[in-house]
């Protein structure tokens, strides 16, 4: 350990000998790392798996059962109410849930100004399937329509000034509801259960309403809906339940390979039966997409972020090259000391250990400086692409990755120069 501290001291003395070139090396490397890390933050968060232990067990089924002949078509991303009923009519999944999102206005009484809120219209299984934490109260006991809402914690605090509001009454679009539950802080990132139309980058919803209530009160989807027949959008409670009006997302939980195989078979049988019954003429094209693949399946990956990832990686390469060049100059100007140490008995291995102390110091400075630049970069990207702002955040894993990247970059920048310096001609250096 004493030798390690000595190596650190030697590095520090060497830095003090020529602080400006060293600062320039650190700055150039930090710039490359900071710019890369700012973009990598978004790339990492957008491609992260919010439920890694479950994302290969939650599936989004899609069937091509449109009421007209359509070969080589992809199945619709969303379902009609009647198709969801058919896809739900199986005991194979461990759990299943239908949902969609809408908008509304929430307030305590008609004398107050209404607050616009986003509403997730869903079923009780949503909360267990996607592991939504509940702070107060409970979720609905069954799938039936009811005048009961669940609020996010922030919404409860905004409307009532506190979080424990179970049993309180609220007005949503001027209809009376009772609050039966309040969620704890929760934001699934990315919101993979809502991946169609790139909604996976949005905030969590503020209000949760039973699916049947949403249909009864004619809440239309605010993201994606279409109909393949003459269903009247304004008659959601009646025609919406029977016609080909598609607006529902549907998820099933299939824990085992056997369940997945069985549910695929179930979907195939369903589509074949529907075709036999004359309800569609399409060639079967069923899809059962795991949650972890859903963004890619829907083509929701951000091309901007991908392109920037490539550009910033190239920029990092250029910075590495330049920093390495500066580092080489620094090492060559110190070559005399390297040669002296070798003449006095230091082996090349010991000089490489000395170099590791250099790497550690450079990692320390570059991490601090790189984080500062990355923070500025994240703020800039948030300003330029506010839609992605939720992903501009760091977590311990990401910071650890940055540290690893900085360490390896510092090593790369130092490796060649230190090798050059330790392989220099001893005699010539000591004569000069």
């Amino acid at each position, binding site marked *: 350990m004493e030798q390690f501290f000595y190596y650190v001291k030697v590095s520090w003395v060497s830095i003090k000998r020529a602080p400006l070139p060293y600062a320039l090396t650190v700055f150039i490397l930090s710039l490359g790392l900071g710019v890369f890390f700012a973009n990598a933050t978004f790339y990492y968060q957008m491609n992260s798996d919010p439920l890694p232990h479950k994302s290969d067990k939650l599936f989004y089924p899609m069937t091509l059962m449109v009421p007209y002949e359509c070969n080589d078509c992809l199945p619709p991303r969303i379902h009609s109410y009647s198709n969801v009923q058919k896809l739900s009519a199986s005991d194979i999944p461990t759990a299943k849930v239908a949902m969609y999102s809408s908008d509304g206005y929430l307030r305590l009484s008609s004398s107050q100004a209404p607050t616009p809120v986003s509403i997730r219209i869903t079923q009780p299984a949503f909360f267990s399937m996607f592991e939504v934490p509940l702070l107060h109260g409970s979720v609905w006991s069954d799938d039936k329509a009811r005048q009961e809402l669940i609020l996010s914690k922030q919404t409860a605090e905004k409307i009532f000034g506190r979080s424990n509001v179970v049993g309180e009454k609220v007005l949503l679009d001027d209809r009376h509801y009772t609050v039966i539950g309040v969620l704890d802080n929760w934001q699934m990132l990315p919101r993979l259960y809502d991946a169609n139309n790139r909604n996976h980058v949005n905030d969590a919803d503020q209000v949760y309403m039973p699916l049947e209530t949403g249909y009864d009160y004619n809440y239309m989807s605010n993201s994606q809906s279409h109909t393949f027949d003459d269903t009247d959008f304004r008659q959601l409670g009646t025609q919406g339940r029977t016609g080909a009006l598609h607006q529902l997302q549907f998820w099933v939980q299939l824990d085992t390979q056997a369940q997945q195989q069985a549910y695929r078979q179930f979907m195939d049988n369903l589509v074949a039966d529907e075709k036999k019954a004359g309800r569609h003429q399409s060639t079967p094209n069923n899809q059962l997409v795991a949650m972890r693949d859903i963004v890619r399946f829907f083509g929701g990956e951000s091309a901007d972020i991908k392109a920037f990832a490539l550009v910033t990686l190239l920029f990092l390469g250029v910075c590495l090259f330049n920093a390495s060049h500066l580092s080489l100059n620094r090492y060559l100007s110190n070559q005399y000391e390297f040669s002296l140490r070798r*003449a*006095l008995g230091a082996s*090349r291995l010991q000089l490489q250990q000395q170099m590791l102390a250099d790497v550690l110091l450079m990692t320390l400075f570059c991490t601090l400086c790189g984080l500062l630049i990355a923070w500025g970069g994240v703020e800039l990207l948030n300003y330029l692409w506010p839609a992605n702002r939720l992903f501009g955040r760091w977590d311990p894993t990401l910071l650890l990755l940055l540290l690893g990247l900085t360490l390896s970059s510092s090593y790369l920048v130092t490796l060649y120069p230190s090798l050059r310096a330790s392989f220099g001609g001893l005699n010539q250096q000591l*004569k000069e």
Partner: protein
Amino acid sequence: MIQLKNLSKVFRTELIETHALRQIELQVSEGEFVALTGPSGSGKSTLLNVLGTLEHFDEGDYLLDGQSVRGLSDRQLSALRNEKIGFIFQGFNLIKDYSLLDNIELPLRYRGISASERKRRALEALELVGLAARKDYHPSQLSGGQQQRVAIARAIAGQPRILLADEPTGNLDSLMARQVMELLEQINRQGCTILMVTHDPDQARRASRQVQIVDGQLSDAAMYDPLAVKLA
């Protein structure tokens, strides 16, 4: 102790080959003080560097304590330099940012000697060269003669068996040069073998043996000098 057998060294560039050392045959016994003399460019510094394993040789062999250094790994050569050989350079080669004590401790660090033992040995060496009171000084605060004494202290702190001195008084005035020579003689009397490159005939005469190199070759008398006189 030192035996060079038919040793040759060639410096090559794309255009020319320079034969720096040609078929050198030399034996140096333990405790000798050998002065290497010769005109500039004759190969004496190259010979010293080969002896110090700072330069490789092309042909022949170099035996130190009966063991050939040819084929030793970098680690083995470093250990050999560290434990058996002390260097004194014309330009002192002290690290200006370190104190005298730190400079002297430098070779001892690579031997894995404990901090307290390093300090003891470094102080002892400084004491010997008469600079113990200035242990915390930096080289730039000393005169040239004092710096060379510090370099000598660094060379002897590891208690090497061989001291290689490349024109140790080349950068010093006559008074300081005399002090340095007296110091080297004192070290030699304590049993350390010294090989010193010098241009100065007076200093060469103070050695127990003179070896002359001309055009990379030893003069006949140098290979074995029956008149070599050990210093008293």
